[in-house]
C-alpha cells in the first residue's frame, strides 16, 4: 500500500445520467490490487449503475475508467479485463455447468486442453466437480451462485465485479458464502468489487468500502474507519446503529443537551449540533452531569441487553448496550443518568 504504487483500478470523476436523473454524479475512487472492495448504499444510490459502467454495459457521460493507467472507457464489454457476476446469475440454460465455464475460455481462443485443465481446476476450487454435467435448471440456488462465480473466475480477470451476489440466498447460506467469497478472493489474488445494500455484509467482507447516496460518493475507507468515524450524518445512520442527540456546542469541548454537559474531543461552535454516539459507547453514571433519561424498554438479545430510553426533558430516543447480567438490574420506567465516551462521539 505504498503511495508510489499505481492503483489497479481508477474511477475518475465518472458520471451517468438517465434523462434528468443523475444516477452517478462525479464519483472518484481508487481500488488496489488484490483488494476486496465493497460499494455500499441504499437502493437507487447508483452503485449498480457504476458497476455496469465498469463492466461496459453503460456508457459514460463523463469521466474515465483506468486499469493500470490505461483508459478502458472506449472498450466494449467483451474486450475489458473485468468480469461480472450477475445478480440473476445469467447462467446459459441450454449449456451444462462445464459448458458454461468453457464459454469464456473459448472466446479467448485457448487450446482445448488448456480449457479443460483450467475448468477442472476451477470446478474443484468451487466444489462443483460433481455437478459439472448438470444443466442450470437442475441446480439449487446456492449451486447456481457458485457456477456464476466459477464462470467469471475461470477467466482470471484482473477485477471481478459482483452484483449483490448473496441477495438471493437464505441467511445461513449467506453467512457461509460471505466467508467463502473472502477465501476465494484471497486464494485467487484477484480484486473483487462487490455491490451490496447490506451494510453488515460489507463490514464483514470488505478490506475497504465506499458509501454512495444519490449518485455521490459520501465516504471511502476501511470498514473500521467508516464505522468509527462516519463522515456525515447519513453514513453514521446507515452503518450500524447510532444514537443522535440534538443539542448545542458551546464553543469549547462541551456538548450541552437537556441541561447536562458532556465532554467531546472536538471543539466547535457555538452553534446547534447533533451528537452521534454508538450504543456501545454509552454508559450509566451517577455523576450530576449525566443526561437524565427514563427507560422505555429492556430488550433481551441473548448475549446482551439493550436498554431503550427517552431523555426526561426533550423526549429524544436513544439506546445503550449492557451485558445480559448488568442489564438485568434495570427495568422499564426507571430513571437513570447516562454518560458518553468522549473520544467516540461525533459532532455534526
Amino acid at each position, binding site marked *: 500500500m505504498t503511495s508510489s504504487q499505481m492503483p489497479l483500478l481508477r474511477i475518475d470523476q465518472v458520471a451517468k445520467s438517465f434523462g434528468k436523473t443523475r444516477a452517478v454524479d462525479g464519483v472518484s475512487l481508487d481500488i488496489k490490487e488484490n483488494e476486496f472492495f465493497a460499494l455500499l448504499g441504499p437502493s437507487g444510490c447508483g452503485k449498480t449503475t457504476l458497476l455496469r459502467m465498469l*463492466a*461496459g*454495459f453503460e456508457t459514460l457521460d463523463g469521466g474515465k475508467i483506468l486499469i493500470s493507467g490505461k483508459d478502458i472507457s472506449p472498450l*466494449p*464489454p*467483451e*474486450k475489458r479485463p473485468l*468480469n*461480472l457476476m*450477475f445478480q*440473476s446469475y*445469467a*447462467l*446459459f*440454460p*441450454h449449456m451444462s455447468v462445464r459448458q458454461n465455464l468453457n*464459454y*469464456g475460455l473459448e*472466446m*479467448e481462443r485457448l487450446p482445448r486442453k488448456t480449457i479443460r485443465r483450467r475448468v477442472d481446476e476451477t470446478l474443484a476450487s468451487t466444489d462443483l466437480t460433481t455437478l459439472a454435467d448438470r*444443466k442450470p*435448471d*437442475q*441446480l*439449487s440456488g446456492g*449451486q447456481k451462485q457458485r457456477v456464476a462465480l466459477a*464462470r*467469471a473466475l475461470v*477467466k482470471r480477470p484482473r477485477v471481478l465485479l459482483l452484483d449483490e451476489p448473496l441477495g438471493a440466498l437464505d441467511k445461513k447460506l449467506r453467512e457461509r458464502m460471505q466467508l467463502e467469497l473472502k477465501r476465494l478472493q484471497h486464494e485467487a489474488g484477484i480484486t473483487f468489487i462487490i455491490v451490496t445494500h447490506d451494510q453488515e455484509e460489507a463490514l464483514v467482507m470488505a478490506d475497504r468500502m465506499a458509501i454512495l447516496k444519490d449518485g455521490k460518493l459520501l465516504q471511502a475507507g476501511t470498514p473500521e474507519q467508516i464505522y468509527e468515524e462516519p463522515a456525515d450524518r447519513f453514513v453514521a445512520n446507515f452503518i450500524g446503529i447510532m444514537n443522535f442527540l440534538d443539542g448545542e456546542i458551546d464553543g469549547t469541548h462541551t456538548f450541552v443537551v437537556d441541561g447536562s454537559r458532556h465532554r467531546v474531543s472536538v471543539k466547535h461552535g457555538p452553534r446547534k449540533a447533533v451528537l452521534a454516539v454508538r450504543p456501545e459507547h454509552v454508559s450509566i453514571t451517577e455523576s450530576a452531569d449525566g443526561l437524565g433519561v427514563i427507560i422505555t424498554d429492556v430488550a433481551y438479545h441473548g448475549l446482551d441487553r439493550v436498554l431503550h430510553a427517552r431523555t426526561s426533558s426533550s423526549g429524544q430516543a436513544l439506546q445503550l448496550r449492557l451485558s445480559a447480567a448488568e442489564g438485568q438490574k434495570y427495568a422499564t420506567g426507571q430513571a437513570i443518568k447516562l454518560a458518553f465516551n468522549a473520544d467516540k462521539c461525533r459532532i455534526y
Partner: protein
Amino acid sequence: MSFNAAKPNLLAAPAVIWLAVFMVLPCVLILVYAFFERGMFGGIEYNFTLDNFKRVVDPLYAKIFLNSARIALTATFFAIMVGYPAAYAIARAPQRWQPILLFFAVLPFWSNYLIRTYAWIVLLNREGLLNNLLRWLGYTGEPLSMLYTEGAVITGLVYNYLPFVILAIYSTLSRLNPELMEASRDLGAGAVRTFIRVTLPLTLPGVAAGGVFVFVLSIGNFVTPALLGGGRFQMIGNLVYDQFLTANDWPFGAALGMTLISVMIVLLMIQARATSHASGERGSREDA
C-alpha cells in the same frame, strides 16, 4: 382448483361433444371412405380396397406431394428469414412501442386471406401495379409475367403467414433474459458470436413453432396456388378439392386428405417432443 361447484368435465362436455361429432366423426368418416372404392357415377362402392392409398404413392401423385412439400418448405424458409429479423427488431424497440408494433405486424393475419391474395394479383398482373411501376421508371420491354409463377405462389404463402412467424419468434425473444446476452459479452463474445451461441439456440423453439405452423398451413393451402398459380401448380389442397368437386372421386380425395393429416400430425409430434426436450423438462432438484 375448481371454479365452481359443477364438475370440470361437465363444463367441457358440450364443446367436446360438438367437436367429437363435427370434427372427429367427419375425419373418421373420410378415413373410412379412403378404404373404399369410387362408385360408377360417383358415390361410394363399399368394397374394401387399398387402391386409393396405392394411387397416392403413385409417381404422379407422389410428385405432387413432393412438389407441395418443396413449395411449402421454401415458403417456410423465407418466412423465417424475413420474420426473425423483424421479430428481433421489434424486441429491440423501446418497451412502449413493442405491443403497438406487434399489433400492426399481426393485424394483416386476421384479415381475409382471399383479399390479401387478390391484392398480389393486382400487384403482379401483366397490367398490374409492379409492371406499371416499371414502365413508369422507363422499362420498355414486354411486361413481366410474374403472376401464375411458382414465385408468385411462394410470395403469396409467405405474405399470408409471415405475421404468425413474427409473433411466434417474438414471444420467445421477449421472454429471454437480457442478462444472458450481457453475460455472453462479458465473457468475451462479440455481438455476432453472442447471437449464434446464445440467442439463436434459445429462440429455436419459437422458430420451430412458427416454422411448423407455416409449413403445415402452406402445404394444405389451396386458395393461394389456385389464385396465384392459375391452376398451373397443383398442390395437395387443389388435388383434394378437385377430387371432391370435379372428379367426384371421394375415396381418393379422402385418401389424399388422410395422408395430409398424417404428415401434419407427425410433424407436430416431432416438434412437441423436440421443444419439451430442449426446455429441459427435468425439474431442478434442491440439494443442500
